[in-house]
């Protein structure tokens, strides 16, 4: 479905994508990488918006640059907003379907169906300027799926969605995959991709660092430091307690918050309730940033450079 051969994209002296070689068959894939890792550049290359400086890009066996035939089979939901504020979602999706080659009537029917699929029926005749971020995100998805493409490419589709919106979008995408359609889904959040597909591509610094299943990613993350932040009534005593138990490698206290770094997150989560109960410390908030993923990328980058 996608074939990239030694693809490099340079923006002047800045490398967007660096010697990227990849072959993907039909299926659903998650493109995981931190912000600025080259995900959007890669998607722009795959959708023919950009031309590789070096190497070749083939999508469904064809070059995506100015390829009208390919664009009939491709659906793309970019990361940027880019909606017309004064028109309604229905008018906008209908317009884009007309550009897809449909008649006005067929485009209207396709727009109505896709907007219904993403739960926008009740608001589709209102101007886009009145929409919430989640509604705009759904509208973006509707324009990408309205012409029933074989291959759907999504760039950060969960961005700005509330938990209900995320759940609904997840259902839509799972149904989409269930129809046997292909999907490439870029995100910087592991669990977003994990909720949709088990096939991962890890990208950082414009390079493909690793690929595999969700289990492979989790296996790689074992042993990497995991940051956990706790807001509590006595952060110094809680930090001392955790260090005493040798569960955390380091602890940092700022105000009411103690941030610890641990290589044993499972043990920490397991024992935390007992310590809290015994010590009488009140924990108001506990937050695990997805720092482990960043640590994984850092580690993979070092391996890639031969530093590990």
């Amino acid at each position, binding site marked *: 479905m996608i074939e990239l051969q030694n693809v490099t994209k340079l*923006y002047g002296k*800045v*490398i*967007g994508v660096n010697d990227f070689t990849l072959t993907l068959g039909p299926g659903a894939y998650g493109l995981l990488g931190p*912000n*600025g*890792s*080259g*995900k*959007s*550049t890669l998607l*722009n290359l795959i*959708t*023919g*918006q*950009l*031309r590789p400086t070096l190497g070749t890009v083939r999508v469904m066996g064809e070059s995506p640059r*100015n390829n*009208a*035939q390919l*664009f*009939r089979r*491709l659906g*793309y939901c*970019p*990361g*940027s*907003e*880019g*909606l*017309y504020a*004064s*028109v309604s979602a229905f*008018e906008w999706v209908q*317009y*884009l379907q*007309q*550009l*897809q*080659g449909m*008649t*006005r009537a067929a*485009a209207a029917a396709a727009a109505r169906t896709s907007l219904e699929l993403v739960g926008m029926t009740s608001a589709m005749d209102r101007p886009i300027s009145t929409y919430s971020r989640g509604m705009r995100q759904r509208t973006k998805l509707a*324009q990408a799926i309205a012409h029933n493409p074989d291959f759907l490419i999504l760039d950060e589709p969960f961005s700005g969605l509330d938990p209900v919106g995320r759940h609904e979008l997840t259902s839509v995408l799972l149904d989409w995959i269930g129809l046997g359609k292909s999907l490439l889904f870029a995100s910087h959040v592991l669990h977003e991709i994990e909720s949709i597909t088990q096939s991962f591509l890890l990208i950082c610094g*414009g390079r493909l660092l690793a690929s595999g299943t969700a289990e492979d990613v989790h296996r790689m993350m074992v042993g990497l430091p995991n940051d956990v932040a706790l807001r509590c009534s006595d952060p110094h005593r809680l930090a001392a307690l955790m260090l005493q138990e040798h569960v955390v490698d380091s602890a940092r206290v700022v105000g009411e918050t103690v941030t610890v770094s641990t290589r044993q997150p499972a043990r920490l989560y397991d024992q935390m309730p007992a310590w809290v109960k015994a010590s009488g410390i009140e924990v108001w908030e506990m937050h695990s940033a997805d720092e482990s993923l960043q640590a994984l990328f850092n580690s993979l980058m070092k391996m890639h450079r031969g530093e590990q």
Partner: protein
Amino acid sequence: MIGNVGAVFLFEWKRSLTLPRMAWWLVLAGFPVFIVGLIRFGVDSAHPNAETDRAPRELWIGFLFALIPMLISMLGTMLWVTPAISAELERRSWVYLTVRPNGGVAVLLGKYMAAVTWVIPPALIGLLAGIILCRVSNGWQIWWALATMVCLSTPAYAAIYLFLGTVMPRRGMVLAVGYSLLFELVIGFVPALINKLTVHHHLQALLLLWCEMDIPPEFMQGAVALMGNTPEWEHLAFLLMYPPVLLTAAVAVLRASEFSSSAESDV
């Protein structure tokens, strides 16, 4: 492809039916009327008892020519067509359009058509009102000649500005203003071969040929030196060739270019 261009054309027209755009439409139609009206008022006030018009017919025709087939056509198309791509890039909507079959080309041509059809009507209405205010003899003949020039100059200027906006979307407006001032207003008056590349030159020549103006011999010699003895059909051919040539060039530039807003490329 034709359907795609038609879709963009209709969508752009529909989007133009907003109060600010309608106000701008009225400004385009009203501006020459306002200027000509001021001159008419000035002339009539200075000579309240004159039995004949104290301003020569050629002066009125010259004003109408400068204001309508030149200024209104240039300004109207420049403001609409030059940012055809840059407006989409700034709004970050360009990518949604270009992942459609021939989407970029359809946007370019659809916006071009919308601009041309949007600018011509106010120009013609302004011209009609201007002619009535001028009270020139053979008014309908002058209207017809200048209206034909509007229908020739608007597509030609739109094609030029669309091309400039495609070649350099981020600096398109600067380029368009620079082109208008340097080429159309300066080089258009230079008696050299290069002035044949300007729309202004051909319009001026047609003005002399079509409007039967009573020009003193010493001025006519200068005009002939500037215009040459090029036949009418050649001027028409030049003006008619601008749109197909420049639109083809713009499409070629578009297909070869990479337009991606920085926000879409997080590198």
